[in-house]
């Protein structure tokens, strides 16, 4: 609740118009915005946009399998006779859903823990939180996510859980650093002197200072989480077929390289497309806030 209030106040203070002006000056940022929006639209309206929506479910048409790209099937058909374009469009759904679920779990957790750890930096609780966070980032996130997924039954849900488990420490660290540096500023002292509760100080005084950094990180992380999810599926430890998941489609299609390259290459390009979009968008937001 207080986070929502903070958000409102923050929006007032950041001079949204100026930020947008900064943002829109860079063509790359605008391209990023366009790509990101296009993937979101494709994901949300997939059943209406995809030319053959039924191909995302149980569908086989072996007579039309492995056809190269044509006017009927822009991205060709796969070994089941399913339209690769339609499945790719549905694939955006799973990629974005992965990012949405992971980030909505990870950001609040990471932020709250980071605020606490930074605020109580000298006390044991702050130290314990940061040492635990260290453990989770002591290995590249993909390695630990792969191990956890392999110990569970591979599924999209477990992949999301595994990635979330790996990701929260980054937000904790970010908030920890910001809190530590802001803590000594006079407005925090002022709040303390007026007898504000620690809770109030953390969420109302300190947190707004971190909003820009968090927002930037969230946008950039969309790309990273999608990449991580796609990597898990590629190895076979993520979403399972016949789910039209992009990483799974790439892995399954890779068997047919080089003869039927379109089965794997178009979903592979689609993954790159989403990641590119959110990277550009994230950099744009970052520049807008810093510039």
């Amino acid at each position: 609740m207080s986070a929502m209030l903070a958000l409102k106040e923050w929006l007032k203070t950041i001079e949204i118009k100026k930020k947008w002006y900064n943002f829109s000056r860079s063509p790359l940022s605008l391209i990023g915005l366009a790509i990101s929006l296009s993937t979101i639209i494709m994901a949300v309206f997939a059943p209406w946009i995809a030319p053959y929506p039924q191909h995302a479910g149980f569908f086989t048409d072996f007579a039309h399998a492995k056809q190269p790209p044509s006017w009927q099937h822009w991205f060709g058909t796969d070994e089941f006779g399913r339209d690769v374009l339609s499945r790719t469009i549905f694939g955006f759904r799973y990629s974005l859903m992965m990012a949405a679920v992971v980030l909505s779990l990870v950001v609040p957790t990471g932020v709250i823990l980071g605020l606490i750890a930074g605020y109580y930096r000298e006390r044991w609780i702050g130290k314990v939180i940061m040492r635990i966070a260290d453990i989770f980032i002591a290995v590249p996130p993909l390695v630990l996510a792969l191990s956890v997924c392999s110990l569970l039954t591979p599924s999209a849900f477990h992949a999301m859980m595994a990635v979330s488990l790996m990701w929260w420490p980054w937000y904790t660290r970010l908030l920890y650093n910001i809190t530590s540096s802001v803590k000594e500023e006079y407005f925090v002292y002022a709040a303390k002197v007026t007898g504000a509760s620690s809770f109030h100080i953390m969420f109302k005084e300190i947190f707004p200072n971190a909003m820009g950094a968090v927002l930037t990180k969230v946008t950039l992380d969309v790309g990273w989480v999608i990449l991580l999810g796609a990597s898990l599926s590629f190895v076979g430890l993520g979403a399972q077929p016949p789910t039209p998941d992009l990483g799974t489609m790439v892995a399954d299609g890779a068997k047919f390289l080089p003869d039927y390259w379109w089965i794997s290459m178009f979903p592979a390009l689609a993954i790159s497309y989403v990641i590119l979009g959110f990277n550009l968008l994230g950099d744009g937001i970052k520049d807008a806030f810093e510039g």
Partner: protein
Amino acid sequence: MRAIWKYIWKRVLYVIPTLVGLSILIFILSRVLPGDPALMAAGPNAPKWVVEQIRHQLRLDKPLWEQYYYWLVDLFHGDLGYSTYTKRSVTADVIEYLPASLQLIFMAALFEIGGALALGIIAGRYAYRLPDNIVRVIAYIGISVPSFVWGLLFQLVFASLIPLFPTHGMYSYGTVPPPRVTGFSLIDALIAGQFDTFVDILWHMVLPAFALSLGAMAQDARIIRAGMVENTEKEHVSLVRAYGIPERVIFSKYILKPSLVPAVTVMGMDIASLLGNAFMVELIFQWPGFSRYGINVMLNKDINGIVAVVLVIGILFAIANIIVDVVVAYLDPRIGRRSQ
């Protein structure tokens, strides 16, 4: 110099509890999550008593803390436990497969540093002009295209269209692997005097190392470029230029060197991406390394193997990060002083 050693020592002391925590985390996860590793290890047709025997062998019949305790004791004897996948000690597997991966990652790191320097310097030198824009596009593509997509793309291009580089394994067929001395096949080939084998291995490393390095390379190129642009505009640069110091010196000492600091600082992240992406790249190129072994133990739910893979990568990552910090301290004395 002594300050540096002290600094390293401090970092090592700090990282040890983290690694212990990591080992506890992955150890517990591997034992607690559902699924019966003994049943899986025994194979589909094994009778119950064989399953029980393996359970006993893996100490799965003991309480968790006791399992961990004995695992630690074994670890101090250099034994990482029995691998149900390779049917031998995990230690033997690590010794066998790790060098090949390190060799690949090392080459990828060389590509990364070389490529990032070249691209970054070009872009920085010609900032806001055509070369800069080209590099920027390359960098964004490099960051956005996952390494496994690069891998597959290379497979597609080099396996059939332009058969210039091999796309599979470490040796050409018919090449006799050098006798194992260090485990690093490149070094072993040199020791054995098999220079054509040496070249053959290098040849096989080009594509996987390149696929592995591209993402990090793009990231670093951008950072170097940004640093160079920033430093070029700094006042002291115009000042030294006014003193008539040669442009070459200005460039290397006042523009390039300080721009490298932020690039080296993010090397830690780059190493993370190399170590992680090696899993996909080794799988695609059938590179007989530790990451491919990692995928196999994971798919076969070999719990001792999984614990070892996570822990070894954790240790490598920690070592790499310490090295990076030392390099940063060397390049930027301010940080070194701060750490004291």
